[in-house]
Each structure stands twice: as structure tokens, then as C-alpha cells.
């Protein structure tokens, strides 16, 4: 009611008492003596005016008495103004709209908007309504508010993007927007099959209902899914149409149309398109097709023409690689993925790292598997690298010297003095935040993480300040992240050298190491092509050619951003499969909501103002009533 909440709403029943003065007033009016008198027109006029005044006075007195009773009842109910804080409302609805590339076809997007508008309009009366859009990431467009027009306006202004579909991203933001308020989440999406890629499940509070409104994306999308420099420029055009299609592919090099080819596409098939044209060694080429009925952002794909220097990753070991072969597994994993993600891997032991006084080009990331041989200079060098913005993956294996670790990373990490040997069933790793980029390839596969044979690990005793990305099944930290001044530190609580676990021998090891390295070098110098949603700082997350702004030790460069080709595939999952990812969580604590309401009421103390108003009303009522009594006494002599 008027954005008001009440701590003790039962007292509102006292509002019924306002009927008492009203009934008394009506009863008195009804019992006014009526005399039928034919000579009424001869009665003097003055008393009529007095009666008008008396009626006005009576109505005023009635209003004052009713208001006094109402204020009294409301004050006892302990009111507070909820404002737009959804946490203070009884219920809220958040409409989550898919704005990914897969729904950007004109017909599909019209269906999305129509469905979302229906969801806004259909929200229960009294609910605050919010709007969240999502592709790879969720973003709150309108926090839950009683003014639904805000959500409608934001929806009207919404346009689809070129990002992927990440349902957990949208749902996570929606849950944040609900802020613990019971209610419902209305998801408008095309159920793209990659909606839950990289996330096993999501806990949804039991008092939050998630309803999915699928929109239908008509098959027939065409996309340029790859461009490379093979034999000039070669592009891959993919058809998701159920019938054969013919399309013209056009090559543009540094803004100039260089050639075009007609491509015959079989149903649901891809075709290579080769432009055997001399290509310059710098600039940007792009291959585009026309597909007005399908998604627009995947109709063009960009290719950087300059050779892309691979980011440099240093593997820091305790012993020299020739003698101990430590760091070998990390090196091999990174080199194995070089075809897809080129990387310059170097292995250096602690002594060499400590003795290296020259300031070489800083590596994009350092994977530390041993610190035992780092001397003071080496530890200081590593610490400075981290503080100055470096990215480090620290593996707490047997070669890590725990007593000097704080010097090496510039951070005091409280670890158990001795490694922990977990029970067999406690050795599995569970991703805490499957949306994190380091789990891009692994989090979707429960078996890849759940069967990791971890034999020993170091236990982190103090998690404060850390963002835990994965835990062992027993609850101990497995992978965690935190900022160290300008740098980023990832901490893996076990070994990466096949000594405390057999993880390096598992198929998931290489994807894990590559994804961690990609995450750590995400804006590293040397990489010129990016696939959404990963873009370096300073580069817009939109397809096209962009300029990477200069940074310390890095010259400006032209980079390209392309859409994720998997998003072009209109294949969808089923509603049941989608909903299966939602796990019932704890009910939002009513006590927490009550505490918030109580705190708000304590802060506002409207009941005190109510009692002050009540006192004022009674004073005014007394003055008016007494004046009326005196006037009547004077009239009757």
C-alpha cells in the first residue's frame, strides 16, 4: 500500500474502528428532526447558513476523528516506506531476456520482445518488476520497482547483441536483483543448446519460481564460422537451413572489396570458400555473406592479417628442467593447444629466475610450480611482477617452500603446515563458480572434475579475501583467486607435476591449463583475434576490427573480435533439460527479510510521526468541537 510495509500488520485491523465515527455521524444525520411545514419559505435565511456551517464543521470533525483513528491504527502497525528496495517487498518478478546472437534474427527477436512484454504485464499485482538482459553475461537493466513502465521502456530500447547464451549468467544476475526477495523469474530465451555450457547446475531459492518462456527460432541461419589465411583467405560458411541455399561470399581486405564467390550450400552443411588473392601482411580482412532472415552478427567474420605473436607464459620450477623435468606437464599442455591458441612457453628454474637481473619483456603469465630455489631476489622479483599487474598461477605442490611463500607472492597465505591426504571420496573437485572462464571446458563435464585422483594437497586455513573457484569434495579450497594489488593470483592447492595427484595424466588437464593460461593472458600483448565474450581491456565487446590501446610495454595494435560460431547454431535443448539445471536451494530467510524491514522501520520511525499527527488531529478536533459547542449554546440562548 503506497510503498508502505508494516512490521505488525495485524494492527491494521484497527482501521475498522474508523467506521464508528462514520456510523455515529450518519446516525445523527438520520435522527435530525424533520418538520414538514408549508410556510417554510417564510422562515428566515440566517439559520440555514448556520446549518451549512454546522454541517461543514461536522464533516470536518468527522474527518479529523476518522483520520485520528486511522493514524492510530497505522502507527501501531509500525509502518515503514519500502521505496524501491525489492528486499522489503513481499514479492518481486524479474523478467530475464535473452539478447544473444541466436535470438537476433528479426522474427525471433520480435517474438522475444512480445513474450517479455507479456511476462511484464502478467506479473502479479503488487509485485515489483525488474528487467535483466543476458548473453554471455547478465546485466540488470531495471532493478525491481513498482513502476512497471520502467521495465517496459527498457524492454522497448533493448536490442539483441552478438554474444553467446549463458543462462546461468542471466539467472545469477536475476537472483542478485531479487536480493533475497521471494518471487519469480521469467526467462525468455530460445533454449539455445549452449545455454548451460560450462555450468552444471544452479541453486535457486525454494521461494523463487523460475518459469521459462521458450521462443521459437526458425531454422535457416547462415554463418561465416571461420576465416584463415590458408591459400590466400579461406572462409567456412555454415548453413543451418533444412534445404539447399545459395549465397554470395564477399572478401574485404583493409576496407576494399577484393573478391566474391557464389557458394552452394547443402542442407545443414558447411562449405569452404577460398579467395586465392594476394593478401597484405598487415591490416584486417573480412568475409561476409547476406542472410537477412537469420542472425546478423555471424554473417561476417574478421581476420587479422598481421602475424599474431603468441603470449609468453613462463613456467617457474624449483629445479632446472633438464634435471628434474618439473613443469613439463604444464609446458606440454600449453604446447598441445598451440594449434588453437598459440602460446610461447618457457620453463625457468628458481635460481635462473633469481639471477636474471636484466629486465626482459615481462611474461603474460607465470605458472609457479616451485619456489624452493628462489632466493631473496627471485622472491622479490616474483612479488613485484605480481604487484605490478602480473598474472600468476601458483601450484602448491611439494616444491613450494611454504615459509618463504609470503615473500614470493607478497601475500600472507595461511596454509596448514603439512600436506593433507584426503579420504578417497573427498578427493573430487567441485567447481564453485562454473561461470568462471577457467571452467569453460571442464565445468560442463562433471566426470572430468569429479574423478580427479587427488592424493595430497595443501589446506588453505583462511579463505578471507579469496574467491573460491573450486573446492575439494571435503570442502577445502582447491582453486581460488584474488587480486594482489594490480595483479591476479590463482592458487591451485595441489600439484601440477604428477607427484601429488594424477591430474596431469587426465584428459581434462590440458583444457584446464589452457583455459587458466588464456584467462591469465586474456589481455596479453600479442594476441590479435578474440572471440566473444573474451576481449582485452579497452576493446569493445562487439564484432569487428578494433584498436587495442597502448599500454605499458605494449604498442597499439589492430585486433579483431568475432562472434562465437557455436552461437550460430539454432539447435536448442528441451525445456525439461533446461530446467534440470535448476536445483532447489534454501528458502530465502524470512528472518533476514524481517530484520531488514525492522532495521528500515527503526531508521524511519514513522510511528512516532504518526502519533505526533494524531496529537495534532486531536487538538484541532478539540478546538473545532469546542467552538461549535459555544456557537450552538449562543444560538439557543
Amino acid at each position, binding site marked *: 500500500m503506497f510503498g508502505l510495509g508494516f512490521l505488525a500488520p495485524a494492527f491494521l485491523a484497527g482501521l475498522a474502528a474508523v467506521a464508528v465515527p462514520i456510523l455515529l455521524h450518519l446516525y445523527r444525520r438520520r435522527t*435530525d*428532526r424533520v418538520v*414538514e*411545514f*408549508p*410556510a417554510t419559505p417564510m422562515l428566515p*435565511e440566517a439559520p440555514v447558513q448556520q*446549518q451549512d456551517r454546522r454541517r461543514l464543521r461536522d464533516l470536518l470533525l468527522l474527518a479529523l476523528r476518522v483520520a485520528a483513528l486511522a493514524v492510530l491504527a497505522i502507527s501501531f502497525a509500525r509502518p515503514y516506506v519500502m521505496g524501491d528496495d525489492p528486499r522489503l517487498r513481499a514479492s518481486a518478478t524479474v523478467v530475464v531476456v535473452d539478447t544473444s546472437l541466436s535470438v537476433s534474427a528479426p522474427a525471433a527477436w520480435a517474438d522475444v520482445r512480445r513474450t517479455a512484454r507479456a511476462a511484464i504485464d502478467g506479473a502479479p499485482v503488487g509485485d515489483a518488476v525488474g528487467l535483466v538482459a543476458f548473453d554471455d553475461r547478465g546485466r540488470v537493466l531495471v532493478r525491481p520497482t513498482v513502476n512497471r513502465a520502467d521495465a517496459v521502456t527498457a524492454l522497448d530500447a533493448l536490442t539483441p547483441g552478438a554474444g553467446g547464451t549463458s543462462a546461468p549468467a542471466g539467472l545469477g544476475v536475476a537472483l542478485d536483483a531479487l536480493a533475497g526477495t521471494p518471487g519469480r523469474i521469467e526467462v525468455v530465451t530460445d533454449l539455445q543448446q549452449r545455454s548451460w555450457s560450462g555450468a552444471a547446475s544452479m541453486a535457486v531459492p525454494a521461494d523463487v519460481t523460475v518459469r521459462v518462456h521458450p521462443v521459437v527460432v526458425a531454422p535457416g541461419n547462415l554463418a561465416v564460422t571461420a576465416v584463415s589465411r590458408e591459400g590466400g583467405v579461406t572462409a567456412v560458411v555454415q548453413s543451418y537451413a533444412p534445404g539447399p541455399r545459395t549465397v554470395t561470399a564477399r572478401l574485404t581486405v583493409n576496407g576494399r572489396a577484393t573478391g566474391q564467390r557464389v557458394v552452394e550450400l547443402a542442407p545443414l552443411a558447411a562449405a569452404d570458400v577460398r579467395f586465392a588473392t594476394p593478401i597484405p601482411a598487415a591490416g584486417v580482412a573480412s568475409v561476409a555473406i547476406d542472410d537477412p532472415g537469420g542472425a546478423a552478427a555471424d554473417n561476417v567474420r574478421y581476420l587479422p592479417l598481421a602475424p599474431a605473436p603468441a603470449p609468453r607464459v613462463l613456467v617457474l620450477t624449483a629445479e632446472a628442467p633438464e634435471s628434474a623435468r618439473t613443469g613439463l606437464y604444464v609446458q606440454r599442455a600449453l604446447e598441445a593447444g598451440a594449434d588453437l591458441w598459440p602460446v610461447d612457453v618457457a620453463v625457468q628454474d628458481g635460481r635462473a629466475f633469481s639471477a636474471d637481473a636484466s629486465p626482459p619483456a615481462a611474461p603474460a603469465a607465470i605458472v609457479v610450480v616451485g619456489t624452493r630455489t628462489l632466493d631473496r631476489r627471485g622472491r622479490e622479483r616474483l612479488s613485484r611482477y605480481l604487484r605490478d599487474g602480473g598474472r600468476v598461477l601458483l601450484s602448491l605442490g611439494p616444491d613450494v617452500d611454504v615459509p618463504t611463500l609470503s615473500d614470493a607472492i607478497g601475500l600472507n597465505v595461511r596454509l596448514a603446515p603439512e600436506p593433507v591426504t584426503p579420504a578417497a571420496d573427498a578427493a573430487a573437485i567441485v567447481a564453485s563458480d562454473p561461470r568462471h572462464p577457467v571452467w569453460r571446458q571442464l565445468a560442463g563435464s562433471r566426470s572430468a572434475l569429479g574423478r580427479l585422483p587427488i592424493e595430497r594437497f595443501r589446506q588453505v586455513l583462511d579463505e578471507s579475501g579469496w574467491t573460491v573457484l573450486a573446492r575439494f569434495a571435503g570442502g577445502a579450497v582447491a582453486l581460488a583467486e584474488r587480486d594482489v594489488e594490480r595483479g591476479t593470483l590463482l592458487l591451485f592447492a595441489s600439484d601440477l607435476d604428477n607427484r601429488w595427484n594424477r591430474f596431469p595424466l587426465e584428459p581434462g588437464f590440458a583444457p584446464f591449463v589452457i583455459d587458466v593460461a588464456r584467462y591469465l593472458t586474456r589481455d596479453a600483448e600479442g594476441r590479435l583475434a578474440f572471440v566473444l565474450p573474451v576481449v582485452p581491456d579497452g576493446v569493445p565487446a562487439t564484432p569487428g576490427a578494433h584498436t587495442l590501446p597502448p599500454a605499458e610495454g605494449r604498442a597499439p595494435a589492430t585486433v579483431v573480435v568475432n562472434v562465437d560460431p557455436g552461437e550460430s547454431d539454432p539447435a536448442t535443448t528441451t525445456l525439461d533439460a533446461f530446467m534440470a539445471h535448476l536445483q532447489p536451494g534454501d528458502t530465502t530467510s524470512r528472518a533476514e527479510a524481517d530484520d531488514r524491514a525492522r532495521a528500515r522501520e527503526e531508521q524511519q520511525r514513522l510511528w512516532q510521526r504518526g502519533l505526533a499527527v494524531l496529537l495534532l488531529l486531536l487538538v484541532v478536533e478539540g478546538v473545532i468541537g469546542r467552538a461549535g459547542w459555544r456557537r450552538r449554546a449562543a*444560538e*439557543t440562548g
Partner: protein
Amino acid sequence: MAGPARYLDPAVLARIGSLDLKARTVVEGVLSGLHRSPRRGFSVEFAEYRQYIPGDPLTLLDWKVYARSDRHVVKKFEEETSLDCHLLVDISGSMAYGSHAVTKRDYACYLAASLAYLMHRQRDAVGLIAFDEAIVQRLGPSARATHLRAVLLALERLPSGAKTNVARPLEDLARVMSKRGLVVVISDLLDRPDDVVRGLRQFRQRGTDVIVFHVLDPQELRFQFDGAARFRDLESASEVFADADVVRDDYLRAMTGLIDRYRRELGGAGIDYHLLDTSQPLDLALTSYLTLRSRT
């Protein structure tokens, strides 16, 4: 009040069922001490048969009836005077008011019936006009006995009227009156005095005698209400809230002024004006009529 005179009390009359009987009662009561009218008309009309009583003139025996039925009956003839009397009875909404057993309308009907009966006895032709803001019912003047019954029946069945407009019915009547006569207006005259006086004056200008019986309830005359109340007009339903104790003097002053004005202006126009209190006996009205009749 004792003897026949007690039947002049309106409260007593109200308990008598038939208006005919009421009229007889009133008239007989009034006439009990008066002489009969010496007037004779210029024509006679058969009225009724009655059984021959020894002593009746034999010239009045109807021999044809005797021949057919072997009964001795005598013919009765009625005299018709040359005076047409018009009884104008106000039946507007305000006349329905009564603070005791008799409303002003009841009182007006008793009075009209009594006058009709008395006029009939006087061999005057009597007519009836009921009006509110227009003429509602009209019976032309006649001296026949059957006509008297028609007048009494009409008085008993008068409809309820609406607003008062005395002047208009007077104008209508003035247009249709063909010869001089007597106009008796029975009304509470709760109308614009200028219109009322103007309407009545036109009869006098034609040589018609006019008697005005201004019928008012005792409460209208004395305003004996007390305390505050909403006073509602019977005709317009408009209301005035007033404390009776506060407004009494002003009201009585206004009512007295109205009565005095009627008395003065109507008297100045040669119109007999009589204020009647519905709680008072009817003899005053009848005596007033006879007094006027004795002058004509």
C-alpha cells in the same frame, strides 16, 4: 361548546363519516338560531316526490301518480336563485398540512361542503372549482339537489395537488364566468401576495362578490415548535434548518405581515377576507357568507 354548536368543531366533524352529513350538521348548527332566507327565485323546478301528509296543499298532489299507483304523493319544487356561487378550493400540497386531526384541506372541504349545503338551502346555484397551480376540477353552478350531491362527492374525491398558483386559476375562472355571482376562495394563500390580490381584484372589477377564506393551521399562526429541526416545504421539498426558538419571532412577524397585507389590500378592493384557524369552528365562515348574502 355544547348542543348543536359542538358539531362546528372541526375535530368533531372529522369523526363524522359522510361529507354530506358533515355539511348538514354544520349548517343546521349554524342556522339553528338564524332566520330562513326570505328570498325567492324567479323559476321553479321539480325536485322530488314525497308522501302526502295531511295539511299539504291539494294542488301539489300528483293525480297522475295517484291514478297509476293509488298512492298520494306531492310534487316538490325547488327555487333557483339568480346567484351563481363558485367555491374555489385550494388543493395544493401545502393544504395537506395539519398539526392536529384536521388538515387545512380537510377544513377547506368541510367548509366548502357546508357552504354548498347552505347555498343549496338558500336556493343559490353552487359550483365547485378545485385548483392548485391550475384548475384541476370544475363543476358548473347549479341549484339542483343532484348537483349538490355531485359537489359533495367531488369534494370527497378531490385529488392531491401540487404547487400553489392562486392567480392563474382565478384568471381562468374570470374568463369563463358569464354573469355576476359570488366567488368563494378557500386557500392558505401561500403564494405571492401581489398575484393573489391582482387575481381577486379582477372579479370585483366585474362586479362579482368575493369572499376569501384564508385557511391556516394553528402552527402556521402561532409557530409553537421548539428546538432545532429541518423544516421541509411540502410543495418544493426545499429544507431550512432552523432553531424554532430562534426564528419564531421573525416568522410570526412575517406571517402577521402577510395576513395584514391580505386583509388590508383585499379589504381595500371590497373583498371579504376572513382568516380561519383550522382548530376553530366553521360557524364564522358560514356566518360570514350569510352576512354577505344578506347584503346582496
